């Protein structure tokens, strides 16, 4: 139940896009059509759900002060936290590359529709942000996984909703300078306002 609450909280109240502005670049760039937004959203859910627990294991077993004591007690004083950023981004980048290769091998159809988004995900800040927040908030392994999934799901909902609105927007008269990014920012602001109503919701 608590885990479910965490999923809910990270998907709606602490939405990656509206509360922390993470993943904005791909959120804005890939939200022109619902079908492509769907592909990117699913890929983000998958990568976030896998990298959050993976990075949790690295943080607890390698990086933290005293984490290396499982090798030998002499290492108990070593603190490798300064390598955190480098390790996390390496894990994410190589995981994304791995996923890309696996999908290419086993499901060329899926690769065709998802292919271009996969490398983009390595630099999607919501992935690295998810790992960094998970460390900041002191989650355990299950919580980290739930948090990763919830955040990914929140991103998915947000990007689908924005893509749907933008498809409709093609038929409205927008002032020239506001076309494209400008009106999208304003819409995102209004959507953020809507997501604010979820604050305080628990099960």
């Amino acid at each position: 139940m608590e885990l479910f609450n965490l999923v809910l909280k990270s998907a709606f109240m602490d939405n990656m896009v509206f509360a922390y502005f993470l993943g904005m670049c791909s959120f804005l760039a890939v939200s022109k059509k619902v079908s492509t937004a769907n592909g990117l959203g699913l890929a983000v859910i998958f990568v976030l759900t896998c990298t959050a627990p993976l990075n949790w294991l690295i943080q607890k077993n390698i990086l933290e002060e005293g984490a290396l004591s499982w090798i030998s007690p002499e290492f108990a004083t070593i603190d490798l936290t300064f390598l955190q950023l480098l390790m996390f981004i390496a894990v994410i980048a190589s995981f994304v590359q791995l996923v890309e290769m696996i999908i290419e091998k086993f499901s060329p159809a899926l690769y065709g529709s998802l292919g271009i988004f996969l490398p983009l995900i390595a630099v999607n800040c919501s992935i690295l942000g998810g790992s960094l927040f998970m460390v900041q908030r002191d989650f355990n392994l299950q919580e980290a996984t739930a948090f990763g999934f919830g955040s990914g799901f929140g991103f998915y909902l947000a990007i689908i909703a924005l893509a749907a609105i933008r498809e409709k927007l093609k038929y409205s008269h927008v002032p020239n300078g506001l076309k494209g990014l400008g009106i999208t920012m304003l819409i995102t602001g209004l959507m953020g306002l809507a997501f604010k109503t979820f604050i305080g919701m628990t099960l």
Partner: protein
Amino acid sequence: MSEVKEKEVVKIKPSESLLSKRRKNILVDPLDDNNPVTIQVLGICSALAVTIKLEPTIVMSLSVVFVMIFSSLLTSLVRDYIPVRVRIIVQLAIIASLVTLVSEFLQAFSYEMYKVLGAFVGLIITNCIILGRLEAYAMGNKPYDSILDALGSSVGYAWIILTVAFFRELLGSGSVLGYKVFEMIGWSGFPTNGLFVDSIGAFIILGLLIWAQRSRNGYVEN
């Protein structure tokens, strides 16, 4: 990342002066006509996240300028030795090492500021402007040109986030750099608007800023 252009490789005459017209263009273009945030739609995440107050925004801009210039220089120096298949990881490793430097520096000399910026210092790594410029420019050009390009792009980024931060702090907290400006000019009842402290204000201010800038230089997105 999505709007990275074809590689912009330029042939240089050996006798070209340090600030020729072409080089000046590299530097000035991203400030306005080809601004990374408002025209190319890159680096929006951090443009919004740290702009509640002006002071952290200044630190953030300086960090980005630093990381951007040095990562461009380093990438440009080793550009002929990077295998194409692993170039993204190599670029990320260069950026991540520089960001680690910044983060350690802030922890050592300005711990308060480090607490305020929190995870967003680390997120400079995934700032798409940096990776985008490395990929599109530094991978194919000489070090000095790459530095100019990096300087132009990062300053173009900096002035946008400083403007957003100025308005957010002014309207949200009624202050500029922590000074209560409205009380100083004798208007103590200034109604501050909580919406601007919140994320929503940032979206709206940036949206309006983009509108203003694009109507000025006539850029229309299809």
